[in-house]
């Protein structure tokens, strides 16, 4: 029996579910392994009998909280895909403003009605079995996870930093080119794609389990960033804090 897979989107750019459709060369192979049974962005069919729910986006409304709980109930495995679902992602940057303030300032008096709560990762609302990090998810990592799930193996994320993959690719470290990088404290798995294309890592995959944040703050400062810029580097994808929600 092929696993029945559904894709759901919450607050985000839907790039992660789109990234699944961007596995053009492999899509037919994936369809041989799994049955896609529900996916609003791509199909009109629907069902409540789901083995694997792939969820992108962060939870940022009361309605979203209800919906993800329902999805949890109807799915055997819930897998968060992408930074928004995994860490809250970029969306959590709004959390530093009070929600009343954001609505008021942004929508004016008409905005009071809109449903918005601080953005949070899926795991902050319901248990998730696994998260595929990245903004967007990495195609290879996604395919590997699908294959492993179909083999009955729980995928495992690397717990080492991006520098490892960056070195294996023999990139010139972007610090030596006058740029800045979060690679030393961020979880690998992306193939160090940013440094490979001349950009510093922005931290979209979240921190490794034991990052040496102090050392990294010192390094960023040593290479010339101001305190505010250092903070911005740390907060771009990783500003969600449980305490703020």
């Amino acid at each position, binding site marked *: 029996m092929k696993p029945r897979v559904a894709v759901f989107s919450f607050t985000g750019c839907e790039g992660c579910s789109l990234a699944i459709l961007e596995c053009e060369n*492999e899509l037919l*192979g*994936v369809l*041989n*392994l799994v049955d896609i049974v529900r996916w609003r962005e791509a199909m009109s069919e629907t069902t409540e009998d789901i083995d694997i729910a792939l969820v992108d986006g962060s939870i940022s409304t009361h309605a979203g909280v209800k919906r993800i709980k329902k999805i949890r109930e109807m799915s055997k495995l819930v897998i968060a895909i992408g930074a928004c679902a995994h860490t809250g992602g970029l969306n959590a940057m709004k959390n530093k403003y009070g929600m009343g303030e954001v609505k008021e300032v942004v929508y004016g008096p008409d905005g009071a009605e809109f449903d918005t709560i601080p953005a949070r990762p899926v795991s902050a609302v319901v248990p998730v079995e696994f998260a595929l990090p990245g903004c967007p998810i990495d195609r290879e990592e996604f*395919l*590997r996870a699908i*294959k*492993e799930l*179909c*083999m009955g193996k729980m995928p495992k994320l690397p*717990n*080492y*930093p991006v*520098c*490892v993959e960056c*070195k*294996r*690719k*023999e*990139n*010139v*470290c972007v*610090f*030596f*080119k006058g740029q800045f990088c979060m*690679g*030393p*404290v961020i979880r690998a798995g992306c193939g160090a794609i940013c440094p490979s294309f001349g950009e510093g890592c922005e931290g979209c995959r979240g921190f*490794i*389990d*034991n*990052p*040496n944040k102090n*050392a*990294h703050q*010192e*390094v960023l400062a040593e290479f010339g960033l101001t305190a505010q810029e250092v903070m911005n580097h740390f907060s771009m994808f990783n500003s969600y804090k449980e305490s703020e929600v």
Partner: protein
Amino acid sequence: MTLRAIDYQAVLALIQSLMQEAKVVAPHQREGERQWSFEEVTEPANVCLEYTSTVLPPKKYAFPTQERFLRYELGESPKAEPIIEAEPLVLFGVHTCDIYALNCLDIAMTDEHVDPNWVARRKQMRIVGVDCLPDEYCFCASMGTATVHEGYDLFLTPVDGGYVVEVATEAGEEMLTNIPTKEATSAQVAQVKAHLNKKMQQEHKLDCDVSTLPLHFSGVADSELWEQHAERCYSCGTCNLVCPTCICYDVLEQLNLALDGGERVRVWDSCMLEEFATVATGENFREERSQRLRHRFFRKYSYLFTRYGQPYCCGCGRCVRQCLVHIDPVPILNDVIAESQKGATVRGA
């Protein structure tokens, strides 16, 4: 040992002629930066023989960063067969430290069990060395790797008007068959010596003779120095990943999409990474950064040194050059030496 003289044009001709028969890899300058890497030569003139150090060592040609070594089929009766991929290769423009490192790994890779993939690649490899001028991170003079006596076919030392080339093997002799060379003049030979003398003048050096290094490690396991030096360490593994004498690897499965077969690959690993020594029960035998840093140093300068009779560090300085928090083997080793000498006095007293 025969010494000949060869001019720059002839070096280009040499590369060109080698390219006729094998893949030739050599240092190239990277992205307009003062960084180099070994890459396949497509145009001899692009080869950069005056360079400090490449990001990754030429080891990557004997032991690729990612190497498939087993192919298997699943299904009714699963089968597995080895993948051993090797091709004739010339490493052109290798520094003494990197030659030393390859020699080191020959021992480790063949001790007790012979690694088939390593040996297959090494058998088809010819090496043309070139002498360098060290930068502030190199400490090959201290490590005894500023010169190397084996592990190359030709060795070039820059002198006025070109290079003096040492022909070390028959294969080296053959490489020069159609290349115009001259007898090296005594002035040129003197220049080679001068070059070496200059290379030996390194500021960055150990406070002891390299042969005594393992002795100094005997009493420092519990020293605070490991914690002090590890405080800023990211545990990012960069130091190991760029090191020419590191061979630790991890093994991954790569299934094909139909799930009916796949390949097993090995990738470079690092003992500085947190999970390197974690076992299934969750126990981590080197949980602290300082324990991992200590292990890295013990492995290079004590364990493998004692096991194989030579240090597993070639003094190339890559680890500190690439380490963002400047964790440098030399001051650490000097702390080890100081500590052990202090301990010796205390014990002696």
